[in-house]
Each structure stands twice: as structure tokens, then as C-alpha cells.
């Protein structure tokens, strides 16, 4: 009897208009979306390989004879970013930013599942109980020797099965296209991640079917049911996640960005003519000049008479050794010490505020994430981005790998400086005829963390989704037990 309920519910849904519309929309949209996203992804990957090659050539050519021998980190587009964009979009607030995706938001597979298929789930189930009551068939079903729990559970299984058909067909079409497209080269680990994402999506969609069923079991008529169900959908998908970040700015505002900008402005103003910092440095320079004038007399006056831009002709590595060159070098060293002494505390302060800014940003992000996580939609967004390697976890990993790389790069730079007897590497003219050996330079490489880690990280969110599922079913059950089926 249980089986017949499932089969009946299944075929009921299949023969309905909503199934055909849902199937059509889902499949067509998924295919269109995957095709365009795949092409964009291929272009970006091609650009990445070109950039890597060009940078390699650039460094081989100019590296040994210039300060530019450390390669800049380049990131390969994540394989699953064509399915789950996550956080991979470029930033919108630089001056030359491409802000078109902010005004015309792109859609990806995660969007299709989270917005369109969730709505479809509601549409399938909003009248599963109250609609049947209105038809008069609910009392017929319940008058049999079936417990209400069996009926409910059978409806759930049959309905969810019919709902997942459009989804699975769309995924199949997407998978076929991706495997046929020569530019998208997914490795087995990427396919496994895609499989995990599919399973999580199935859970998410079924959750909304459950939501619709729950509302249906609590409503007297279909029209009330659909209104309530859509209202809940709006709150879960549109209201809570979008409010989350703004609530977090109230709780943990970021004060340091303002401070960073003010400090920077103060420094820039201070360096202008008449500015505080410049006055201080000018005084110290004047003092230094007086000291050298006393000590070296005419030789110093001759040196000072040379315009600043030409002084390197006298003190540079290629210049012939002379007393004036020796004096000039010590003079320059002392002048640099003055600027370090004045600028040092300013830079230390700015670094401190920048570090504080980073901490505040991370804290606000964490709070916003937790607030939004009340909504199952947000949980699904987090877990899909994390599985695809385009979410906050991978951002953290990239930051960590990048900073480790820059530490190594710094060490290497200092080694090269030491090789040239501490003549500054940034002085190109010094090393032109005596190229550096940069063969041992550090290389940047970032590899996405193993799938097992990503799945482990997404388990809490899956847990929340399942908890909601249990809650919805429990409420639906209680509602149905008390339901007047006549």
C-alpha cells in the first residue's frame, strides 16, 4: 500500500503542467548557462596559461638585469568555477573595475538550483495535502487502512522523486556538455566534486519540497498555502541572507579603513611643501649638509653643486673611484638613515592599522556568515562554493599560500642584494653589466585542497540542511495528524 502511494504521487506530478514547465525551464536554462560559462571559463584558462608563459619570458629577459625578478602570483581559474561562481568574480570598486557583472549578475548552476529549482519544489508540493482535500480524494486515501504517517511519507518520497527528475536530467545534460567540450579539462577529482555538489543540491531541493508539504498540511486551502509557501521562500532566500551582512556591520563596524585613509592622507600632506614631515626632514638634511660642509669643505660644495639627477654619474658603480665618490656614498647612506628615522614610525603605524583592518574585516565576515546561515539557502551557497573551491575556504588558503610565497621571495631578494655587496638592487644601472643569477628564485604555485577536506568542511552546512528537513517533516506530520480531511 505504501508503494502505491509513492507511485500514485509520482505519476500525479509527472502528468501535471508544472512538471513539463519545470523540466523545460530547468534543462534549457542549465544547458544555455553551462555552455556560456564554459566558454568564459575556457577563455580565462587560456589567458592564464598565456600570462604564465609571458611572465616567464619577461623574467628570463629582464630579471637578471633589473629589480623585477620575482614572479607575481597568478591563479588558475578553479575547474568548478563554471558551475559555482562563488567569490571568484573580480572586485567592483577599483577605478577601472569591470562592474558589469554587478549590474547584470551572472547566473550559474548553483543559482539555478538555489532560486529556480527551490521555487519549483514549492510549486510541486504546495497543494499536496490541501489540494487533494479540495479534490475530495484525500478522505478516500485516509479512509483506507493506512496510517497518516505512511501517507505523508509516501507523498514525500513520490513527490521528491518526481521533482528530482528535471534536476537530474539537467545535470546529465550539463555533464555531457562539459565532458564533450575540449577546453574544459576536468580531472577525476573535479568530477567527484561535481558529484558531491549534485548530492548536496538534491538535498537542498528536497528540503523545499518538504517546506511546501509542511505549509500544505497547515493550510485549509491551496490559495492560502501557495501564498504562505512563497512568503516563506522570500524570507529564506531573499530576506535573511541579504540582511545578514548589514546586521554584521551594525554589530562589528569596520573603523580602520577610515583610519588607514586618514593616516595616508596625513602622510601625503606632510610630504608636501610646508608639510610637517617635509619640514622635519628638511631640517635634519640641512643639519647633515652643515656637518659635511664643515668636514669636507670644497669637495662637498662641488658634490652638492651637481644636480641631483646627475649625481649617480659620480657615485654610481661605473664611476671611477675617487675621494668625492667615497664621500658621496657615505653622504647618501646618512641621508637615507635620516629618511628611515622619520618615515619609520609612520610606516609602522600604518602597518599596524592595516593589520587591524584585516582583523576587523575577517571578524565582520564571520559574523555575517553566521547570521545568514540561519537560512538554508545561505548554507547551500556556502557549501556549494566550498565544494567547488571558489568559496571562503579557498580564499583563506590562497591568502596563506601567497603570504608564504612572499616571505620566501623577500628572503631571496635580500640574498641577491647581499651578493652585490649590498649595493642596492633597485639601482638598475648597478647591475646591468653584472647580471644576477636568478635561477634559484621561488615559484608560486597554488593547488586546491583535497576533496576530502572540502567535503569535511561542508558537512556542518549539510547537517543544518538535514536538521531543517527533520523540522519541516515533524511540523508537517503534526499538522497532518490534526488535518480535517473531509
Amino acid at each position, binding site marked *: 500500500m505504501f508503494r502505491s502511494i509513492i507511485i500514485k504521487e509520482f505519476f500525479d506530478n509527472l502528468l501535471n503542467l508544472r512538471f513539463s514547465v519545470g523540466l523545460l525551464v530547468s534543462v534549457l536554462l542549465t544547458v544555455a548557462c553551462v555552455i556560456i560559462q564554459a566558454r568564459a571559463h575556457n577563455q580565462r584558462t587560456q589567458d592564464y596559461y*598565456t600570462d604564465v608563459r609571458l611572465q616567464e619570458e619577461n623574467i628570463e629577459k629582464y630579471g637578471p638585469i633589473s629589480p623585477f625578478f620575482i614572479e607575481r602570483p597568478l591563479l588558475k581559474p578553479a575547474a568548478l568555477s563554471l558551475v559555482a561562481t562563488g567569490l571568484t568574480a573580480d572586485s567592483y570598486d*577599483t577605478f577601472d573595475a569591470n562592474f558589469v557583472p554587478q*549590474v547584470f549578475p*551572472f547566473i550559474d548552476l548553483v543559482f539555478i538550483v538555489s532560486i529556480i529549482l527551490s*521555487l519549483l519544489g514549492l510549486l510541486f508540493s504546495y497543494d499536496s495535502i490541501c489540494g487533494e482535500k479540495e479534490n475530495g480524494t484525500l478522505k478516500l486515501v485516509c479512509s483506507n487502512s493506512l496510517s497518516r504517517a505512511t501517507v505523508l511519507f509516501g507523498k514525500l518520497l513520490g513527490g521528491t522523486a518526481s521533482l528530482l527528475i528535471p534536476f537530474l536530467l539537467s545535470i546529465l545534460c550539463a555533464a555531457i556538455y562539459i565532458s564533450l567540450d575540449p577546453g574544459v579539462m576536468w580531472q577525476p577529482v573535479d568530477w567527484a566534486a561535481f558529484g558531491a555538489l549534485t548530492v548536496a543540491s538534491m538535498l537542498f531541493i528536497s528540503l523545499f519540497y518538504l517546506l511546501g508539504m509542511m505549509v500544505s498540511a497547515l493550510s485549509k486551502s491551496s*490559495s492560502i498555502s501557495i501564498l504562505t509557501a512563497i512568503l516563506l521562500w522570500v524570507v529564506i532566500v531573499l530576506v535573511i541572507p541579504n540582511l545578514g551582512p548589514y546586521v554584521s556591520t551594525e554589530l562589528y563596524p569596520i573603523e580602520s579603513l577610515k583610519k588607514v*585613509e586618514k593616516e595616508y592622507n596625513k602622510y601625503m600632506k606632510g610630504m608636501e611643501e610646508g608639510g610637517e614631515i617635509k619640514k622635519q626632514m628638511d631640517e635634519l638634511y640641512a643639519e647633515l649638509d652643515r656637518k659635511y660642509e664643515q668636514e669636507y669643505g670644497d669637495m662637498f660644495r662641488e658634490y652638492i653643486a651637481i644636480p641631483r639627477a646627475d649625481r649617480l654619474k659620480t657615485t654610481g658603480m661605473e664611476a671611477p673611484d675617487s675621494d668625492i665618490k667615497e664621500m658621496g656614498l657615505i653622504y647618501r647612506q646618512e641621508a637615507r638613515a635620516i629618511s628611515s628615522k622619520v618615515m619609520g614610525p609612520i610606516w609602522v603605524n600604518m602597518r599596524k592599522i592595516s593589520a587591524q583592518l584585516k582583523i576587523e574585516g575577517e571578524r565582520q565576515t564571520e559574523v555575517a556568515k553566521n547570521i545568514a546561515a540561519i537560512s538554508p539557502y545561505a548554507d547551500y551557497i556556502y557549501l556549494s562554493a566550498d565544494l567547488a573551491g571558489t568559496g571562503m575556504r579557498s580564499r583563506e588558503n590562497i591568502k596563506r599560500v601567497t603570504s608564504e610565497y612572499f616571505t620566501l621571495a623577500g628572503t631571496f631578494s635580500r640574498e641577491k642584494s647581499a651578493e652585490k655587496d649590498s649595493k642596492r638592487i633597485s639601482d638598475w644601472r648597478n647591475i646591468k653589466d653584472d647580471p644576477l643569477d636568478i635561477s634559484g628564485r621561488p615559484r608560486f604555485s597554488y593547488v586546491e585542497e583535497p576533496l576530502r577536506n572540502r567535503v569535511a568542511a561542508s558537512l556542518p552546512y549539510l547537517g543544518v540542511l538535514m536538521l531543517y528537513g527533520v523540522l519541516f517533516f515533524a511540523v508537517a506530520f503534526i499538522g497532518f495528524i490534526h488535518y480535517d480531511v473531509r
Partner: protein
Amino acid sequence: MLGTVIKKELLEHLRSFRFLVITAVSLLLVFTSILVMYRDYESRMEKYADLLPSMKQNQTMLRPASMSILIRGMDEALCQQVTIDESFVSASGTEQAYNLLFKLFTTPDLFYVVKVILSLCAMLFAFNLVSGEKEARTLALAVSNNVSRSKLLIGKWISGLACLILSLVIAVLITAIIFNMSPNIQMDAQNWLKLAMVLVSSVLYLAFFFTLGLLVSCINARSSSALVISLFLWVLLVFIIPGLGGLAASRLANTQSAQTLRIRQHMARVERLQQGIEEDGGYGRVTDFPEIDKQLADSRARFERQLTLSKAITRISPTAVYTQLASDFAGTGVLERQQYKKTILNHQLVYKQSGGEDGGKPVVFTYKRMPVAEILASGGLVNLLVILLQNLVVFAAAYVLFLRYDVR
């Protein structure tokens, strides 16, 4: 007779559960969104007031737009502190860039509430106005009297629309009063005009979805199929067309990622510096980077193309048209940002050529946000006409379908 129809429809709506829920939800969401956005505006004004005194001669910063409380758009990016130098222009960064969640979710401003939620409400309000009455068997009774079908439809349309936008208009009027009283917000003539234009655009937008719902109601006898079709059309117009259109445009325009642009500019800079050293022993300073200028010009051209294509492809959906209308009138959209960027780049050119002086006085950068007349002339009027046309098409279709509707 039209008056009677309207009165009957109004009373029916006012007593329905649907009207109650939709009005309550609209009011709640509108007020919540305005409250949240007002706090955001306040904190941005604080930052503006704080930073303004410390800015240098070659730095500029726009005051946050009062209308950004209703339509935040790109206002935070517009109001960054911009440093204009001979060889580069740079922006200082926004607070939202430090909280990754802002990238995952959308701004819940009034614009979003109207665009997504109220349009859905409009369709839910209208989808069974005709088919529901047929199912209740009162439509045949109404039509069998000497009420012309056109009067019946127009009556339904007027009363339904009035109920729908009642909540929106009330909410916006109350917030206009609050704006007027708040010291933080300057409401000059231009701002009032902009507010009025935004309200007009929103009403036109919601009217479209209401009429579309009415149209769907006249297609079929059954309300449940009308519901399915309504939801499908809503999803298509609000999400699918703008989303796919934007994607397609980005592919057609072949824009490059920020990472590619940055690295190629860096490499061009290295080459130019090396060239500079070889030319004159490197004792002078290299100030011109023709290769970088070329790359910037190329990327800006591709971006323009992507923008134009996106606007053209998505124009078929009133959601995209409304997005442009509302954000352009508020001064937080594409139009304002493009204009601002152009003005800054022109200033940079003048600054470079004149060496920072103009008859002994320093070249100062000034910028005023676009007035309504200019916005209308730069595509605002065209967009208004497009959305009006879309309204007319849907109304005509609903009219024709209702005339042929089987009321039995």
C-alpha cells in the same frame, strides 16, 4: 458601470487574505530595507565628513547620494577617495570589500524589494483575477449583464493596481517625509524630482507585472495552471533574461579578467623602464608608458562594448529596464559612474598637459551629479518609453484575450 465594477473589485480585494498578506509583507520589507540602508548611508556620510578635511589637492571624493538609501547601486564605489596623478588614477577601496559576504549576496534596498519581491507579489495578486472568478462561477453572471467586457477588464485592472501600489506609495511618502526631516539628507529640488521619477518608474514596473498576471489569468480556465505560468514568466523576466543576457554579452565582448590586465600592465611597465635605461643611461625619470595606455584604452573599449551589449540584449525584460531607470535617476548607476570616470580621465589629461597649472592657478577637479534633465536625455526617456511600451503590449494582449475568454 465602470465605477460599480471598480467598487466591487476594491471591496473584494480589501477583504481578501491575499491583500492583507501582500500589503503587510510589502510594508514590512520596504520599511526594513529603508531602515537598514539609512544606517548604511549614515555610516558612509560619517566617513565622508571625517575624510574630507584631510584630502590633498589632487584627491577627490563624491558626497554619498541621498537617493542611495533607496537604490544603493554603486554609490559606495562612486564615493571612494580618488587620487588623480599624472600617470595613474587610483581609488582607496570600499568597506564592503573587506566583508566577503557582500559579494555572495545582494543589497536589500528598496530597489531590490520592488524589483524582485513586489513584482512577484504583483503577479500573485493578478494571476487568478479572471480564472479565479470563472472558477467561482461569478464571471458568467457579471458578463451576462450589460457590462461590456472592456469595462470589466479595465475595472479589474484599475482596482487591482491601486491595491497593489497602495502600500508602495504610502511607504515612499512616509520615507520622503523622514528624509525631509533628517539633517543628514539634503533634499533639494533635484532630489525631489529624482524621487518622483523613481516612484514613477517603480509604478510602471509593477504595473507591467500586474498586467502580465492579468494576461496569464485570461489564458486558461484553471487557476493552478495560471499560477505555474505566472511563476515561470516571473523567473524568466526577473532572473533568466538579465542573467543570461549579461553572460552572453561578456562572452561576445571578450573582456579579460582583472588578473590578466594587471600582469600585462606590469610587464609593459618593466619593458618601458628597461627601454628608458637603455635610451639615456636611466638617469632621467620615465613618465610616459604608451604600451600601458594602449592596453588601458583596449580594455576600456571592450568594457564599453560589454556594457552596450548587456543593455541591448537584456532590454527585452522590464526588470533590466527598471534597473537602469531606477539606478540612473538615483545617481548610483552605470550612467553616473561612466560620467564620473570620463570627467576624471579628462581632468587627468588636462592636468598632464598643463603641468598642473592654468594661468598660475592649480587645476581643480569639480564634479556635480547629473541632474534629471541630463539623465532623461542620456537614455532615461528612452527607457521610460520602453517600459511604457511593454506595459501597452501586455495590456493589449490581456484585453484581446479577455474579449475572447470563455466565461462559462
